[in-house]
């Protein structure tokens, strides 16, 4: 019989914010969070709401919290990020945590069952605070660049064509989001095949040219076996004048019926890449992905396409494709909307056009 334990005290959930953190804990509601002992493991169902106060002197644009019950294997660690914020000094950042985690039943019985820590805070001038264990600085900076791009797009549509044009554009975006082809994906690391099958073939990537991209893909391939792709690796060349330290490639797979799906992103492993101007390098991941449709029906992969989806220069600046480039490359219908586009279109859906216009006029 499963035993339940309510997680409602600091002794079971520890919230670690460094003394010099620009965010302080205002309140923590543990809700219906509970731990359930089953067999040799403990399942932690977290349903929490934290309120963090911005004690800094700049507006907060994003926050990432690390939530860990154990950090050794899958299921023990997660993170919660809240991008697309604009919280002024003294304002409050609400963070909802709805996750399940696993831990051994009696690991460190005297310590807390779950620890929540700050991984990073991004400010409106792109300054960053935090240990950045999860590379949240880069993720949040990229989301912020996309947010600036998409806000600028909606604002320019509003300026040029008024509220009616904005409404058309938002409806197009909502339609794209609803119709975006989706796949179920399974991922395993360290080259472990999801199935035991040997690869059928080595498939080469085709590449979509993204105008203005500071890095150009030269060649790439992955092992294919039915609905499974393994160990993608892509050679890229820095065509810009600035050294690059991170590249992320968008990975599109095409099924036998000729339908394209955004499968995953392939980021460079952290230490792998340093690309001076004109030099080539390799983006690779020792990973295995299997694709299926909603009913579990495997998707046979016919071909693969890659495109440059994100760059970090050595000075920390982030490049993301422009909307015009994504549209020209016919990728706008495939890639997920940015968090800001998702937020703005949701605002329109729930509160209407005037609320969206008001929001766009804020900053």
């Amino acid at each position, binding site marked *: 019989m499963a035993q339940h334990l309510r997680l409602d005290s600091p002794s079971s959930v520890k919230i670690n914010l460094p003394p010099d953190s620009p965010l302080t804990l205002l309140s923590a509601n543990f809700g219906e969070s509970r731990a359930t002992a*089953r*067999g*040799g*493991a403990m*399942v932690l169902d977290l349903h929490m709401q934290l309120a963090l106060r911005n004690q800094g002197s700049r507006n907060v644009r994003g926050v990432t919290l690390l939530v860990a019950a154990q950090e*050794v*294997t*899958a*299921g023990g*660690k*997660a*993170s*919660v*990020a*809240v991008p*697309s914020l604009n919280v002024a000094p003294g304002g409050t950042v*609400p963070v*909802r945590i*709805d*996750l*399940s*985690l*696993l831990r*051994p*039943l*009696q*690991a*460190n*019985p005297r310590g807390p069952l779950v620890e929540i820590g700050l991984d990073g805070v991004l400010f409106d001038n792109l300054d960053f605070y935090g240990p950045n264990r999860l590379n949240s600085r880069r993720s949040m900076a990229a989301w912020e660049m996309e947010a600036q791009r998409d806000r600028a797009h909606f604002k320019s549509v509003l300026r040029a064509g008024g509220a009616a044009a904005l409404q058309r554009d938002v409806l197009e975006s909502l339609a794209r*989001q609803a119709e975006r082809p*989706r796949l*179920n*994906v*399974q*991922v*395993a*690391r*360290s080259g*472990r*095949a*999801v*199935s*035991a099958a040997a690869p059928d073939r080595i498939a080469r990537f085709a590449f979509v040219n993204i105008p203005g991209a500071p890095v150009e893909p030269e060649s790439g391939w992955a092992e294919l076996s039915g609905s499974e792709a393994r160990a*993608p690796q892509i050679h890229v060349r820095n065509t810009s004048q600035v050294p690059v330290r991170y590249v992320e490639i968008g*990975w599109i797979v095409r099924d036998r019926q000729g339908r394209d799906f*955004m499968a*995953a*992103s392939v*980021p460079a*492993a952290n230490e792998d890449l340093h690309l001076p101007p004109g030099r080539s390098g390799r983006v690779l*991941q020792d*990973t295995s*992905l299997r694709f299926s449709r*909603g009913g579990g029906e495997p998707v046979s992969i016919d071909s693969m396409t890659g495109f440059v989806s994100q760059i970090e220069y050595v000075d920390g600046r982030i490049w993301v494709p422009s909307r015009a480039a994504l549209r020209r490359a016919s990728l706008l219908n495939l890639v*997920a909307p940015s*968090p*800001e586009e*998702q*937020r703005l279109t*949701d605002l329109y859906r729930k509160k209407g056009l005037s609320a969206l216009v008001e929001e766009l006029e804020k900053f």
Partner: protein
Amino acid sequence: VTKHPAESILALYAGGDLGIVGRWRTARHVDRCERCQAGVARFEAVREEVATLDDLPGIAWNRIAGEMKANIRLGLAAGEIVRNSRSEERRTLVRPRALVAAGCVAALLMAGFWLQYPAPRLAARDRGVRLEMTEAGIALRDGNRVMTLVNGRQSGVVYTAGAQGVMRARFVDSETGQVTINNVYVE
């Protein structure tokens, strides 16, 4: 200041799963350290208890524990190789050439040993635990057993996968209107 072994090392030590060098090094510390002796005793107790329990309904915890140990071992192996190569570099500055040569051979053998050691484990894990992303959420899957980590009850959830082993569920919070992104990691 005494540097205590990490909890993961003590866990492996308690289970007799450390390699020769790691076991010797940890034993040397544990023999002299009451705190770590208590830690080892705790892990031994858990190990005995866990051995008597069935797998978790819905997910095979014992299998995950195997995965956990394999991951730790892999990390230790990599760490050992790095440490060995670094210490070899240091030795070259102070010892005669013969010792350097002997050290390099030893390091090579050690590296070979460590590289070989986890290989069978990796092969055994081919069908092991993995993350799965569906319209219903993000789950930990082990064969036909599934445990949901992130529930997709909210409408309009955008799921994305990263080949580095991260899955993301992104939705607009209905109460705050903010975008929230839940990230789950394979390792």
